[in-house]
């Protein structure tokens, strides 16, 4: 019996050395380790052998089984590795094409990695929405809350409550779309700025207030490359017991640095808006020329970004905030101007005419 085992072993080793693929290895395994293999038969027949012989054969047969199992495992690994290597050798420099002429990855590799991928429909947010989110996020990080308000407004909120009574020359700064109303009704309009929300927010909350208000505004204006009848503004308002002009500067400097980059210089100059005092216009140094003067900045080296100021005491009084106790700052910026500057867009009308060839660039 032991001779038989030795014979099986030598035969199996012989065959093993000539195996060329996994299929043949599997056949080998069935032949030498399968249920019907000689080795399995011998192991099953052990019980019928005399005790002495049984011991000897059992030890040898189990040893042979372990040997076969190890050989099988090792050969399997090396055959797999051989197959991978062959595959790699095949893909390099060889294009595999099925008879139909359709390039296929089913065999090995693909015919040409420069072929375009399968198209996936792609959506994007409008550049205004993207910039709006970016700017609001900056102010949210500075403790501001985002609120929104009506676009159709009463004259009171858009003008009178902001120190712009009827016949005030500052009304020339805001060309207005008026809404048809019944005679005797209060004058209704499309808000010309987001500032009316200063009044609405203060009317319904007590200080401290810290909000930003994004939204559409409207101007009764013939459109051209720099003028639109509808555009977006973001209004900011902070009111508290110790809010100062220095806080306004700090907040807006921080905003400008985060949006435009640390290297931008920021400038505050005096300007006039009826509902703030002192009034401010903030500019950054021109990103195109770095301040030496070019077409983008009309030779001044500076680009106006927003208007701001300390909330006028008369405005505070109108919403029953005591200007002796509270001070506040407010700012308002035109949104489209910012992507126009950052991306070199030369016509504001592109934003809301929604040409997909424009929108897809952002």
């Amino acid at each position, binding site marked *: 019996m032991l001779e038989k085992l030795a014979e099986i072993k030598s035969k199996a080793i012989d065959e093993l050395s000539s195996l060329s693929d996994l299929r043949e290895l599997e056949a080998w395994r069935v032949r030498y380790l399968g249920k019907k293999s000689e080795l399995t038969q011998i192991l099953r027949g052990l019980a019928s052998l005399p005790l002495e012989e049984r011991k000897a054969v059992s030890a040898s047969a189990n040893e042979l089984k372990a040997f076969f199992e190890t050989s099988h495992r090792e050969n399997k690994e090396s055959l797999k590795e051989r197959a991978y290597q062959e595959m790699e050798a095949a893909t390099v420099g060889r294009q595999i094409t099925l008879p139909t002429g359709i390039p296929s990855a089913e065999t090995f590799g693909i015919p040409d990695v420069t072929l375009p991928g*399968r*198209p*996936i*429909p792609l*959506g*994007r*947010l409008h550049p205004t929405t993207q910039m709006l989110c970016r700017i609001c996020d900056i102010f949210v990080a*500075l*403790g501001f*809350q*985002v609120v929104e308000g*009506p*676009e*159709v407004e009463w004259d009171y909120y858009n003008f009178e409550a902001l120190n712009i009574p*009827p*016949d005030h*020359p*500052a009304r*020339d700064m805001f060309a207005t*779309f*008026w*809404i*048809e*109303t019944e005679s005797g009704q209060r004058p209704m309009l*499309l808000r010309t700025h987001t500032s009316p929300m200063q009044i609405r927010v203060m009317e319904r909350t007590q*200080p*401290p207030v810290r*909000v930003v208000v994004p939204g559409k505004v*409207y101007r009764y204006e013939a459109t051209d490359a720099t003028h639109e*009848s*509808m555009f977006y503004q973001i209004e900011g308002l*902070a009111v*508290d017991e*110790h*809010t*100062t*002009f*220095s806080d306004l*500067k*700090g*907040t807006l*400097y921080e905003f400008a640095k985060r949006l435009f980059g640390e290297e931008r210089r920021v*400038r*505050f*100059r*005096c*300007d006039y808006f009826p509902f703030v*005092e*002192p*009034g*401010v216009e903030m500019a950054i140094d021109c990103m195109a020329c770095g301040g030496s003067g070019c077409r983008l900045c009309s030779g001044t080296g500076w680009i106006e970004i927003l208007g701001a100021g300390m909330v006028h*005491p008369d405005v505070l009084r109108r919403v029953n905030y005591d200007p002796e106790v509270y001070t506040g700052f407010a700012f308002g910026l035109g949104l489209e101007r910012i992507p126009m500057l950052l991306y070199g867009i030369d016509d504001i009308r592109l*934003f*809301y*005419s*929604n*040409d*997909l*060839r424009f*929108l897809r660039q952002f």
Partner: protein
Amino acid sequence: MKAPISWLREYVEIALHPEELSDKLTMSGTEVSGLEATGGWENIVVGEVVAIAPHPNADRLTLATVDLGGERLTSVCGAPNVDIGQKVPFAHSGAQLIDPESGELVRLKKEKIRGIASAGMICSERELGISDRHEGIMVLPPDAPSGTPLNEYLGDTTLDLYITPNRPDLLSIIGIAREVAALTGKAINIPDTRYAEAGESIGGKASVEIRDPDLCPRYCATLITDAKVGPSPPWLEQRLLACGMRPINNIVDVTNYVMLEHGQPLHAFDFEKISEKRIIVRRARNESIITLDGMVRDLSSDMLVIADGQRPVAIAGVMGGAGSEVTEATTAVLIESANFNPASIRRTSIKFKLGSEASLRFEKGLSAELPLQALRRATQMMAELSGGKIARGIIDVYPGKREVKPISLTTKQVARILGIKIAREKVAKVLGSLGFQCERVSPGELSVAVPYWRTDVRLAEDLVEEIARIIGYDDLPTTLPSGALPRYKPDPMRALIEKVSNILVGCGMQEVITYSLTSLAMLRKVTPQPAALKVANPITTEQECLRTTLRPGLLQTLSANEKHENNSIRLFEVGKVYLPREGDLPEERHMLSGVLCGTRLDQSWHGDSERLDFFDAKGVLETLMERLGVAPRFEPSEDKTFSPGSRATIVVGGESVGTLGELHPRVAERCDISSRPVYLFEIDLERLLPATMAPLKYRPIPKFPITLRDIAVVVNEEIPSKRVQDIIEGSPLVSRVTLFDFYTGKQVPEGKKSLAFRVLYQSPSRTLTDEEVNRAQQEIVSRLSRELGATLRQ
């Protein structure tokens, strides 16, 4: 407002370069929008005409000998006004001049004119680029120094300033000079306005009566007789031109000059034409006036006029009447210098669409203290330039005089607003430089008297701005707000919009933002209810009303883009619609709408793609709803905007939240859309919002094995597949049902359809036995048969 630096220098010393000066002005609130250099002439000098001889070969030409401060040159001159003793600009050959015909720059060459060599040229204003005048040579003032380069003598830089509406005092050269003085620490010199009076007192010759003192707080007048009207001297004309005004005659020019200098508009009447020699300031009646521009203006009782004994002679503060205009024949001039109610002036000038230099100043609120000083200056200049006599005295009717109280300002207030302590002395110094008079009340408090010209300064806060802007905003500290954060109020609609937009972008949809204003015609094309708010003053009919649906903008965007898009177009917009409300602001409702058309996939080598269909659009909505945690039902609808059969109402929690369908070809055609089919959906976000607010709750991942079974049934065609699915899902052991096949055709009877579902059985608490699943499956099948007449398909 234009301000030549040479003119500013009359009142304040300016050592700064024009660029530095404009930077200082800009930073402190007076924006310099441009610097305009006049001159830049080379090879042109001041000369004196010393001899004139006729040209031997031409009747109209002369030979003018010009002394250039020692050197004498002779040039051929064609100007009719050349005369001995004139100071003139003389161009040497090589000088660059403007060709009067073409307007282009040309270089003067040495040449012979009709046989005589010309050593140079005496120039006209047009050739020098000073004005359009070319009737004759330019004549310089007699004191112009011969031999001096013209650029040194006449070259100048003019500041172009944007004056904010709160600072009418800066619509004057003196006002700007005051700013320059404060910004540079120099003194300001105001011109002397003393003059000699002669003859009768004005009181005996003319009278002024103000009938409406609320509209005219003050009216001052002087009278000049024996005046000779003629052109103004060149220096005066130059200044008017530099400031953008046209010289007319010495009388009118003085009123304009003094207005530019002091900021006070003035008017000159031909006194002979003032009926009854009375000036009455009153509201207009039903009457009309021909204004200086030749227009007949109908006046109404809300307008203030200057009238004589009979009729209006001027629209107060807006424009004078043609009937009392100063002409060549005028010898007696009544000069008006008054103060008018700004709102009234503004209303009148808007009504007439007549924004004059005068009305632009009056409407911003000038000081009532200004007229007298300006009047003195004008009277002095006019008498001097016209050779007239000044009647004794000044008429000054001043019913609106008001005491201006000083403002109390504490250093604490300054610190409270600016965030930095500024010493009282520094505050007083800065304010003093602007003409404010500060008196110390206590160690930290000042009493500040506002100079009369600063009508914009009323409060302590106004003074704080003055301090800040003169010190310079850039020199103030930079801090962040220190107080407590306000209580956070969540805004679920904003959160929903952000989420919806991001999901749709993930579904391959492009966001658009379209105009809120649209046309009634467009609304009528796409919606059955076009009741919209109308704009009272639309610019175009395309933007005449506020949208009540997002459809117009989306469909117009689709129409505009389909010409250059050859794959698919998938657009959505989240925006407001504006629904009118009786006697109130409209309801502004947040809506979502989308359109899809074209091919499912972009064209590629992977093969042709099918066209998008109803279920692509529905798939987007289902994905959206699933991500929002909402289970919508789609029910057949009757919306006529869509094609019959391909339209559905989207129902959430028993309420319709929107609609979906294939755009009716009739609607598509009206909207100028050539793509077919087009799918459109519309969701009312306000109605959807509550369903999205249900709190999220985690469900444990089932541990027990699943059993898959298929159910294929044949039902009548009109039975919605959702009803079949609902019955299957109704079985308590079923955890998920997927429709994987839908068929109508030869294999099933006429009027029937086959539906095949894959049913997933799973219990959260135990392993299901085959028997249990079989029983459940059987129950489902018998319920389908009982309730829907379904038969099993083999």
